[in-house]
């Protein structure tokens, strides 16, 4: 029950297991270097660790059979969606079996009357919304990347419209999970509320594959709003933009998205996404959902607030194409930031603080950035108190890397000191293992105990999420 046990899975057992899987799954069990390489890392920092074999299961039963074999052989098993996670979640630190769920990609059931659906873990967010076209429903959670629903559930993803629709925590109604012993567990269900038993659904959501492999997800859906309008407002300084957000949240305007880009990030986006008619100033992107009258009311209330803080007149995007272009630019922020310094790498920080501390947190961070002499644009889902820095550094310059790490660390510690967290939505993976203890103290012992209770041999994505 120690990490040692898993750190050195018996090479003989691994070899036998790989052979067995290749026999059982034929072309769907792959050991080629390139495929293992592809499954050795997510996005973000390229710290890779190769699995011994990649298997592509097609059903719950196949996943269960594979996990069962891993359980018997005490070999790690790592679930993989499309590899868009940012904190090294899918790196096979101790080798083992990577289970690529991308071929389990069927939408199983759509129930317009109950506003829910059931999907296999490999269905991507965009695929689901494409299949929902014509039903008048949509699935709102949008982390930017076209991630799989299984991966989004496992990492408790949120995104630009969490301020209105919540995160995966609020939108997963039930799961089918293959537990560490290879048995199939069903949690939650179709019913909207239940007070029976512990909330295993939310326990598996965000567990990053360390307690079991999510194979099916029951999701909450929403009616496509009658009217949608997006707007952009620019501010003379960062404080005014942040204070506008705080005032909006306090008033309770049900904004669907409210995103902050600082002057540096705006400059990057203007160049990268060829946005026209904007200045490189602190900027808020808004989106309003509702009935036509509701959208009008919300946007009028919002404009009144931003006027108070010296915001510019709103530039509207009411046509779907214009909106798409705008949000595409927002979602490309990470790549736009990287393009500011060709050849540079970037740390994405992920601080999240209570709204009442947001202004302090961002403004103090901005001063840190200036002091560091680095380029680090700020972008964030500020309605949730969540913002990111992309700290750029030259990977060949040890001093720059050190300063970049120092800056990222300072942001994390500040967020924690302000009653917040260093990981609003990207999760822990293994990059952030060390800060978990700082944030959670005694609770980490409990997390460890839960991990041991549900995965006694530590074969489920070992080395991630909870320090053992």
């Amino acid at each position, binding site marked *: 029950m120690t990490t040692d046990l898993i750190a050195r899975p018996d090479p003989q057992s691994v070899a036998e297991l790989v052979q067995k899987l290749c026999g059982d799954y034929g072309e769907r069990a792959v050991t080629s270097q390139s495929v293992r390489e592809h499954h050795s890392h997510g996005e973000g920092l390229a710290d890779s660790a190769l699995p011994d074999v990649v298997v592509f299961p097609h059903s719950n039963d196949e996943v269960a059979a594979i996990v069962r074999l891993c359980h018997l052989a005490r070999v790690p098993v790592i679930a993989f969606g499309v590899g868009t996670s940012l904190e090294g979640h899918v790196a096979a630190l101790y080798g083992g079996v990577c289970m690529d769920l991308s071929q389990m990609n069927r939408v199983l059931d759509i129930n317009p*009357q*109950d*506003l829910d659906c059931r999907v296999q873990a490999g269905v991507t967010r965009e695929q689901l919304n494409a299949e929902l076209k014509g039903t008048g429903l949509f699935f709102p959670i949008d982390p930017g990347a076209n991630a799989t629903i299984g991966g989004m559930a496992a990492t*408790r993803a*949120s995104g630009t419209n*969490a301020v209105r629709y919540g*995160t995966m*925590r609020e939108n997963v109604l039930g799961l089918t999970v293959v*537990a560490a012993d290879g048995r199939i567990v*069903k949690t939650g*269900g*179709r019913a*909207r*509320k*239940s*007070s*029976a*038993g*512990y*909330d*295993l*659904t*939310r*326990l598996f*959501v*965000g*567990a990053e594959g360390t*307690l079991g492999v999510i194979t099916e997800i029951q999701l909450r859906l929403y009616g*496509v709003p009658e009217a949608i309008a997006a707007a952009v407002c620019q501010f003379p300084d960062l404080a005014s933009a942040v204070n506008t957000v705080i005032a909006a949240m*306090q*008033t*309770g305007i049900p904004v669907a998205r409210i995103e902050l880009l600082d002057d540096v990030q705006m400059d990057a986006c203007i160049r990268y996404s060829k946005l026209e008619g904007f200045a490189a100033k602190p900027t808020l992107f808004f989106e309003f959902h509702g009935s036509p*009258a*509701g959208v009008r*009311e919300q946007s009028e209330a919002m404009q009144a607030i931003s006027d108070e803080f010296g915001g510019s007149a709103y530039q509207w995007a009411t046509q779907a194409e214009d909106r798409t272009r705008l949000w595409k630019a927002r979602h490309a922020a990470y790549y736009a930031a990287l393009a500011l310094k060709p050849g540079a790498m970037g740390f994405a920080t992920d601080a999240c*603080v*209570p*709204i009442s501390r947001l202004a302090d947190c961002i403004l103090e961070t901005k001063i840190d950035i200036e002091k560091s002499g680095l380029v680090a644009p700020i972008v964030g889902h500020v309605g*949730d*108190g*969540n913002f990111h820095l992309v700290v750029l550094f030259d990977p060949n310059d040890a001093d720059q890397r050190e300063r970049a790490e120092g800056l990222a660390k300072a942001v994390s510690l500040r967020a924690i000191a302000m*009653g*917040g*967290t*260093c*990981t609003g939505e990207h999760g*822990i993976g293994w990059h952030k293992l060390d800060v*978990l203890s700082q*944030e*959670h*103290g*005694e*609770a980490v012992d*409990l*997390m460890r105990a*839960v991990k*041991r*209770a*549900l995965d006694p041999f530590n074969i489920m994505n070992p080395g991630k999420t*909870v320090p053992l």
Partner: protein
Amino acid sequence: MLNPALLAALGNILPATSILTASEDTRPYECDGLTLFREEPNAVLLPESEAQVVAILKLCHAARLPVVARGAGTGLSGGALPDRNGVILSLAKFMRILAIDPLSRTATVQPGVRNLAISEAAAAYGLFYAPDPSSQIACTIGGNVAENSGGVHCLKYGLTVHNVRRVRAVLITGEVVEFGSEALDSPGYDLLALVCGSEGLLAVITEVTVKLTPKPQAARCVLAAFDDVTSAGAAVAAIIGAGIIPAGLEMMDRLTISAVEPFVHAGYPQDAAAILLCEADGTPEEVAEEVAVVNRLMAQSGATLIEVSRDEKQRERFWSGRKAAFPAAGRISPDYYCMDGTIPRRALAAVLQRIAELSEQFGLPCMNVFHAGDGNLHPLILYDANRPGDAAKTQAFGAKILELCIDVGGTITGEHGVGVEKIGDMCVQFAPVELERFHGVKRAFDAEGLLNPGKAVPTLHRCAEMGRMHVHRGALPHPELPRF
């Protein structure tokens, strides 16, 4: 009786007035809102600081003494029923509201603060605490977290688990742990969600930070009557299917209407087979728009009468009937038994039809009153405990209803919890593989099983049928409370 050494050790932690052992003092703690089960506690402890809770739990842990935490005792599933060998740990003295942060829209309170008291304190900032169990004037926030309580408003605003940011609690070993955080997300496993609805089996809550919601500027209620239950069910489906999430969406059947109307004169049409109450809240324009859509959908689904509340007074009158449904049942029947199942909304009409058939079959009337919007049923089986065989028939009828809920993909308890009441039914809803995970979680928190033993999660050996909420001659615990 507790052994004298233990009692003396407790005396070093608490003043004598905070340790109740005399029968006349402990008797009020022998049951909660589920009066069918009673057990006089050995001792009732009334700490007032977290340090005292820590010391008590350490002592109990060392002595292997079971501990049952208790709030206001309004629970409906026996979650606070004393353990024969243990003590009751009452959090009643934890009554302070510690902070309200209008900017972050949160309130930090002690667990013994009443649900409604939070909304009252937040009202000065135009905010309120959304989950509103019917016992909200008496029930405490600590109990709400333990039971993951709902209420009429949870359709739109979520259950307790959606409205709690942070919980501070003490483990049976005496360690103080914080779950969640003041920020919107918190990394690692979602232990906060585990604690919500854990029915006092995982930890003793000492502080809670809840999310506050801005008070809507306006609210109006639509009353619609139907000639048959199926059309009313169809109207519910149409409203939700149109993407509307009303602030409340409640349904009552003919028997309920006929019990309620002579009692409170809510203005319900007595000839209707079912009525729906649908509340819209928001800005005046939003409310007007939503009411218009709801009216149209009600009419399309075959409503025979539609009335929209003109003012606050009428809105409250519409709701008064719904709130009086339980006491009204007590007026027309010597006994009733309240169920609490949840089903997927689309199964509503079929389930109601089946309940009607079962009612016929068992020869017992059943009032149907429920949170239709989220499919949470509260069937009230009417019976007479003095008529031989009635009680047994009622239990059998009730069990059938719960099985029916599970059959259509629902659950045996929407919001009242499992407690001792439904521990047998847990075996119907969950397979051994799931129960084993529950036990794994429990072991991680409380390896010796000292916190609230025998509740909520049955052992694998024990899957026996247990009793249910029994209300004799309307002698409901806390009769002063409006019930949903």
